């Protein structure tokens, strides 16, 4: 199936819902790893919006990306409670372990604030990290 066909399917699936744009963008991001300019154009046409409106939404939210990134992602929480539990001291080692192969992303709070430092890979959460455990997560992702 071409990308265009798949996009039309996703749009059709949500079109009749109230406020369909966010659910569509989530599905597109999950499926293609990004919401690129082409997708924006097709979604805009499908929902009778301008491309600017769709781009405005895509660019507003941290979860949507304009370009694909093939690297695996490790999200590390760097909000206050995890800072108080020492996450900042892990960052240098984590960056070294990530190198150019893994993308480290910052997230503000995973809701596990008494057992930090915490990280998220896909839908899996990891708590009580120290430098070794975080490095191992990054190396094996």
């Amino acid at each position, binding site marked *: 199936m071409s990308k265009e066909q798949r996009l039309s399917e996703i749009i059709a699936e949500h079109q009749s819902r109230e406020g369909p744009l966010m659910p569509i963008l989530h599905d597109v991001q999950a499926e293609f790893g990004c919401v690129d300019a082409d997708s924006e154009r097709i979604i805009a046409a499908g929902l009778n919006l301008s491309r600017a409106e769709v781009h405005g939404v895509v660019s507003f939210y941290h979860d949507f990306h304009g370009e694909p990134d093939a690297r695996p992602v490790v999200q590390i929480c760097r909000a206050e409670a995890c800072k108080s539990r020492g996450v900042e001291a892990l960052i240098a080692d984590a960056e070294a372990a990530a190198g150019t192969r893994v993308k480290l992303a910052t997230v503000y709070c995973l809701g596990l604030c008494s057992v930090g430092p915490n990280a998220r890979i896909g839908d899996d959460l990891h*708590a009580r990290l120290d430098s070794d455990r975080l490095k191992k997560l990054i190396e094996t992702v």
Partner: protein
Amino acid sequence: MTLVRISDDALARACGADALAAAFEQHGCTVHRVSSWGMQWLEPLVEIDGKGFGPATLDDVAAILDGTSDLAIGVIEDHPFIAKQQRLTFARAGKTRPTSLEDYAATGGWNGLKRAREIGPEQIVEEVLHSGLRGRGGAGFPAGIKWRTVAAAPGSQKYIVANADEGDSATFADRMVMEGDPYALIEGMAIAGQAVGADQGYVYLRSEYPDAIAKMNRALELCADIIAPFQCEVRVGAGAYVCGEETSLLNSLEGKRGEVRAKPPLPALEGLFGKPTVVNNILTLAAVPHILGQGGANDYEALGMGRSKGTMPIQLAGNIKHGGLYETAFGITLGELVNDIGGGTQSGRPVKAVQVGGPLGAYLHPDQFDIKFDYEEYTASEALIGHGGITVFDDSADMGGMARFAMEFCAAESCGKCTPCRIGSVRGVEIIDRMRAGRKRDTLERQPQMHNTPKQDRSAEDEVTLLADLCDVMKSSSLCALGGFTPYPVLSAMRHWPEDFSDNPDSVRNALDRVGT
């Protein structure tokens, strides 16, 4: 066969609960995955015949089963952390399987909704008003008044929106409700729908909570017939903190940029798609089934202090020995929470600072530990309860760095609508960097076309004055609390720990006095 209970809450799972549950099954036990008791330092907590063992690892399984484990904490319900709480919203925590309709009904589930349907809209609003329930999302607005407004608003289409954006660091009570007792939230929403005449609900749930999303979807599927004609669905956020602000949230639900709307119009009158809308926090809605139970409103009203009625699920987080969920009546002091219940810092070092109310909340000094948990008392101390999250820092914390982070966070999460927040936060980061590193001003500021910047470098004291001034502007002229409250953590850190900002702490104190903020 031995019945073992282990939580399937996201935190327990992140600490290894799934593998542990599998190991007990391999040992021939029946494992029930239940909600979490909220004693998070003990997760994964294993419960057998009411007795607890934690934090358990795979290596502990055999010893727990043959009764020789040194992780035993005795009867869980008698543990002081649990026994001293007054759990209303979290009455089922640790006791039921989250998506089991059987468990929910067996523990009084749906009684509130049943009664609500009998007594009708006006009486529901009356009871919520009488209970004194205030919004738990931060602003503390009386829930009954909001509902009454929506009920009285003209229009056939109205909405109930549950705000599950829970972006504040140190908060996880909403998550625990959704993962541990999802039907309580759904019942609360259905009651709200009954009260105001809305038949459609949305749960706006942050994307950082994959477990909660899955549980809520499952629960909604299973109870659709029970709540009908009320319908409800989950909508997933997309990583924007500001979408917890109610009007930004509504824009996001509509498929727009999450920009904050000016009020009026109030969402109660013109909310989602311009229709009258109740936006309530998860804890607010989850408190409702109890209140609507027989005599619930009176019970609720009898707890608490002043105008802060009922109980608050307080979240103990950060560098704290006994972190977790502590639901208790308003009025408890911060010192009791941090020292007596929380056991002080996890690191064993002295407490330096406590942030209450998430990233927009003030940093409190141990000298202020007798402050009582009460909306008005916190406001009077230039602090806020917010969503009830408490982050403890030990003496290794760098409060200048935390103040800088407050500004950095505001810059990263600002919706961009108003200047004091969008640009002020960036300037705030720069000023704090200059104060701390003694850096010279940007070359940009020295350009001849920057007419109104001073020609000389600022003295350390000038920088502090500038920062205090900036905070004053952000406080008084931001559209929402993101820009408007970011000064709280910054100013409180400056006031209590000036030495973390400058080699000359007196200059910080003097400047704060001069600006008077």
